[in-house]
């Protein structure tokens, strides 16, 4: 089921696994990025979301303040029952810097980062 769709991001929900999957591509403007983050939070508030996989493999850079914004919503997701979040590491080096900033945020402890979606899924399935 598609929860949110934009030219540069799609968010899908797997009800059986209670898993959200964000698939990002290219450079996403600040407002659209935050809309996608908000959509994730709103959906998780109303539906059981046990795990999230964020595929950033083909994503472009994210503004530092937007990266902080994404980190700031993590406690809300955890409070609603999130058990684990996994990222597929981006190829773009600036997006890697964005993700590194996200990873350094105290509120994102426990999030894990994988080279492939299949590795990420193995970890999420083990939770």
């Amino acid at each position, binding site marked *: 089921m598609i929860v949110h769709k934009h030219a540069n991001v799609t968010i899908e929900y797997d009800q059986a696994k209670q898993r959200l999957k964000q698939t990002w591509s290219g*450079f996403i403007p600040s407002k659209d990025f935050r809309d996608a983050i908000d959509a994730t939070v709103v959906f998780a508030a109303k539906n059981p979301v046990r795990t999230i996989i964020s595929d950033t493999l083909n994503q472009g*850079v994210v503004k*530092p303040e937007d990266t902080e914004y994404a980190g700031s919503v993590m406690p809300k997701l955890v409070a609603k029952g999130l058990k684990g979040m996994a990222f597929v590491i981006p190829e773009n080096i*600036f997006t*890697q810097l*964005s993700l590194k*900033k996200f990873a350094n945020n105290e509120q994102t402890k426990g999030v894990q980062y994988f080279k492939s979606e299949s590795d990420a899924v193995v970890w999420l399935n083990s939770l």
Partner: protein
Amino acid sequence: MQTFPPPRIYDALGLIMSYYPNHFTEQAKVEIETLLDHCLETLHDDSEKFLSTLIIKALRKMIGTSGIDEHIYLKRYEITQIELFNILIKEFPFVKWGHEIANTLICNKLKDSENAIIVDIGIGQGIQMVHLLQKLNSLPKIKNVTIIGIEPFIDALEATGENFSRLKSQVNYNLHFEPWNIFIENIKEATFAEKLAPFNGEIIINASLALHHIQTLDNRLQVMSVLRSPSPKGIVLVEPNIDHFEPDFNRRFHNCYQHFYHIFQVIDNLNIDQYTKNGLKLFFGREIEDIIGHKNSERYEKHEPAFRWIEKLIHGGFAVQNNFLEKLPEVGSGIDLYFNESGYLGFRYKSETVLSVIYAEPVHIA
């Protein structure tokens, strides 16, 4: 815990620079801000991040982006001019030993002279010359020394005059200072001859970290010719060994990065506190701003590699002399000195020759 290593800063910086001149899209500007944000996080004790911050600062000035204000992070490292001069002269090996080697060489060349004329190009406040004049005191034959100080900044010349006045009573020869408030490239052979005419003695020309400020090749060649015209005993050049004369922005960036990356590592080796180290690095930010942040026609820090200065000297009628010092000093901070067979003394840190000292004498055609 699954994590991942951060990407190499140099790679990220190289990508950003490749957008020059007209590919600074909205995404590119966010990339610049992201890299800057990454660098500023642990700026204090990370030389590569400090250097990258200065380069990004220069680039942003050039392309006019706004966003994170790096000045807030950098200004805590500002140090006073006096502190800076002290560190440069007493601690920073490229300046301290560049001066020392040039002065030793000049003394060696004047050891049998009674009268000497030293033409110092870009004399500044005369710091190097004060050390040289003290050193000349040990020469038994020297009687009269004239310093012709060429300097475009009148305030600096006045300070030099005061420095020399204090020194006069401490030296056992007659000291005369002739200030010349002019850009070296504006001096013609005739006016140079007129300026030298009243004085007697062997002429030594010293140009420490000065000639790279001449903007064009034609002017550089003309200056060499003018300097050759009075048949000086010799000329000493001290110059950074790097190509910032390069007109291509991307090549210039890579040269700039390599050069200052090594200089900053040397600064990290100095026995001074971290704030002072960063203050010294910040000082070089002005040069980086000139190299990266200004249009080529508005630039003054146009360094050239030693071999190109040698070419200019030869073109001007000089012949370079190698192995001009019998014994090379230990300069410390991980720097080794070596004579390059093409005719210069190199200050090398790891694989990078950061500074060169060149000595040349006029070729006399029979």
